[in-house]
């Protein structure tokens, strides 16, 4: 397990847990980001928000949010 922020560009990972309030979890869930979901990091430039691919769409996630998403 590691935070999503540590995942390199072009790497696939599986979401395990979201450490956040109702709102963050709800928003991620609606976009298909639930525990067990496979995702791919499209862009992680080391600062600023980054982009992941999930269920056929591209999603931008703020760095702060990403640090609270555990993947493996």
């Amino acid at each position, binding site marked *: 397990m590691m935070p999503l922020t540590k995942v390199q560009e072009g790497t696939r990972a599986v979401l395990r847990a979201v450490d956040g309030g109702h709102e963050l979890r*709800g*928003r991620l869930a609606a976009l298909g980001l639930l525990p067990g979901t496979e995702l791919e990091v499209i862009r992680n430039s080391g600062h600023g928000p980054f982009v992941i691919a999930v269920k056929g769409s*591209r999603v931008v996630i703020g760095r702060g949010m990403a640090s609270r998403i555990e993947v493996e």
Partner: protein
Amino acid sequence: MPSTLDRTITVAVAGNPNSGKTTIFNSLTGAHQHVGNYPGVTVEWKEGMVRRGNWSLKLYDLPGTYSLTAFSDEELVARDFLLNHKPDVVVDVVDASNLERNLFLTTELLEIGLPVVVVLNMADVARDRGLRIDTNLLARRLGVPIVLTVGNRGQGMDDLIATVAKVAIHGISLPGAADICRKSGPAPEALTRLEVGSGKVQVDYGKQVEPFLERILALLPDEDAARWRAVKLLEQDPAVLDEIPDPEVRREVSRIAEEFAAANPEQTPDTILASKRYETIHALCDGVLSQIGDNGPTFSDRIDRWTMHPVWGVPIFLALMYGAFTLTFGLGNPLMDLIDRGFTALGGFIDGFWPAGSTSPLRSLLVDGVIGGVGGVIVFLPNIVLLFMAIAILEGTGYMARAAFVMDRFMSKVGLHGKSFIPLLIGFGCTVPAIMATRTLESRRDRLITIMVLPLMSCGARLPIYALMIPAFFPAKWHGPVLWVIYVTGIMLALVGARLLRATLFRGENTPFVMELPPYRLPTLGSLLMQMWTRAKLYLRKAGTVILGAAVIMWFLTFYPKPPADYVVPAGFDKTSIAADTHFGDLHDPAQIQSAELSYSIAGRVGRVLETVLRPVGFDWRIGTALVGALPAKELFVAQMGIVFAVGQVDETSEVLRTKLRERYSPLVGFCIMLFTLISTPCIATFAITRQETGSLKWAVAQNLGLTLLAWIVVFIVFHGGMLLGLGGAA
């Protein structure tokens, strides 16, 4: 029965953001739509009508949402409409290229228990991505009709209308249904996949969840949406819980929900239910969705390599913004001048019906009040229309989401969303369209903060004030730096202000920055024109009426009451031309008469009263009067100063006025005047648009009072700081 002949079917159009929902709505309704705000929130709201024979479809465009949780105003508005207005049919626009994600909302809509028609949009994009969807099978499994559309080409619209009518009539069974379907004509066979299954699909939450749902259901009144409510209650949705009238039942439901949460400690209730929902969707799509062909980087991915590049992203963004700015103001300002001249000419024409120098109140009301007021409204139209064209292009192509990505790094530092940058930039041109541009921000909090600080971005109407004042008080080599200081002061105050608002009034957790990146698309000319048209209409109808009303009131305040002949013009009113204790009746010079009239008017009196509060910042009643007179539009400050100083009609290049200003005020006061006009209460148009866009008078009043207070404080500090440093003397 004649009463059944005219039947209106209410239709809610729901769907994910970027699903092409708005395009479908526009294709269906054409220009017959009405944009407004949902009461109490900043969520935009569109209605439209379609007529087919005796039947009308009344369409409501719900805000684009991914689900129906209680986390955003959009979702609350959407679900409030579905639950309380109970539309006859819900049209659910589904992006075919992103099926599973879009079906999340579909299953929620089905749970609410309203008749649903699924629109599978952008089937062409899905095909290009190598996706094949078995629509027959999907329709059978969902138990709802599916209509295939290509929204931006208007394909499938007749089929959709016919299907909606059929579904509405199946439920209400009225004669005449066949008529509509015939009149709309058969849709192209390839696009029609209408199949009604035995019943609607329901998410099976499994034995871990269902018993709890049963227990909650037993406590709720029997209605279509009961199951959906039970699910939300299990997720501990506060809004749904509050809707239960009986406190006893409320407590019992909370207890069951807590029991459920305690029984599943490893996951939160909402996560469990969402996972179950996705499991059902996954099963639904099994055999429906197949991927053929390659799945390499898409066209959008290739463009994103540049637009979201760590180095090139910002310059590309700035270049596009420059383009938008040039379009809005470069093309718009000549048009504004044209409109301005047109209204001046019209005023001159009307003026011609009265003898020269007439003091007829009717002439003044028509020329200065009404024509001036209407002109003041219409003059913004080119900017607004062009700006919204630029925004429609940026949004329609999908670039806006990239802009938010690029700017988020900078904007998040002041607690704002990446997208806030665009309205703030527009604010340098004109605050009114800039405030309208905040509609691109999803969160109400981001919108309100942006609107509150927007007037600090020095708009084009303040430029004439600087153009008058700077050369009056400063040597040529200082002109550039002084102007720069003024603009930068505004920007810094806006950024600090946003930070402070975030930390005080709008405290709380940041809205999670999670945003879908839609694939790039070519917007259609039709939808661009439609957006321009609806904006223009909205502006003229809503803001226009307020601006016009305010302009007429301001006209009254600056012209009335008229001084009697024995009115003693205040001594030293203008020490160079009017002697002390002169009676108004003895004045002959038109400029002096105008000046004395202004001093006697309500605005002049207010200005004098204001002197008490303006004295500590170095201003006298003349500046106070000009500030009051400049409320309709900031650039009027120049003309008002001209009147106050009895130099007649002047513009910002008037050397006579500059000389008078120099005689009376020090450069420090001149600088303070500019600062004050920059920061203090924005123009009436801004007030009106803030009131309209925030949906409440409260925010508009708060903005005005807050900014004026801020202006006073800043100018007080600058004035007294300057005096201490010995800058108070003459230049």
